């Protein structure tokens, strides 16, 4: 299934500046693999060396945080929009 992936500004140097790219997969894991296949430099920004989603990255399928719908097994279908957002936090 082809899905649109929204790339946050900080990762765009890895996608040649593109804010939106296309990727293939039926799960988030497959979509990420497809993304990394196209843009190898982006891997370290999204997943840890053992393949899990980084804590400081939020991934959404449409309006759903993938943490609650299966993480890397979260299903995606054609036309879904996957959004990758960095975690934004700080303190006093």
């Amino acid at each position, binding site marked *: 299934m082809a899905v649109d992936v929204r790339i946050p500004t900080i990762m765009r140097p890895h996608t040649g500046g593109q804010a939106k790219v296309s990727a293939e997969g039926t799960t988030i894991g497959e979509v990420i693999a497809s993304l990394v296949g196209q843009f190898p430099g982006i891997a370290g920004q999204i997943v840890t060396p053992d393949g899990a989603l980084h804590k400081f990255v939020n991934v959404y399928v449409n309006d759903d945080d993938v943490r609650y719908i299966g993480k890397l097994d979260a299903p995606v279908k054609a036309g879904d929009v996957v959004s990758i957002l960095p975690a934004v936090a700080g303190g*006093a």
Partner: protein
Amino acid sequence: MLQLTDATYSRILGHAYDGLPMEACGLLGGRPGGVGSGAHASVFYATGNDAHSTKVYTIPPKEHLRAERDAEDRGLEIIGVVHSHTHTEAYPSPTDVRQAPDPGWHYVIVSLRDDAPTLRSYRIVDGNIAEEPVVVVADR
């Protein structure tokens, strides 16, 4: 240099006070600066603080997503993040620097320590903090 519209500036201060005793936070929407021109923030996306703390803040990811979409709909981008320091100065803490997610962003801090609020803005790149002037401009 960061330009804030009147309305954005007021909303930021209001949200900071509304958040007491917790830290308040939000995202800035607008146009990034270019060579010779400062960034222009015309929208403040007041968000909740997922950390619910007087000392730390976390922008709720779902609200971040909504802000990104809204900014895009308006032909703008998210150009920075705002948060309050309830009892310390308006300067990035080690936590702020360590967790700064985007070197292109403007980091606005509002201190509520004194009787009058202080709003200051910074660029944080590779752990280096550089303060930048903030200019409040008429709404456009």
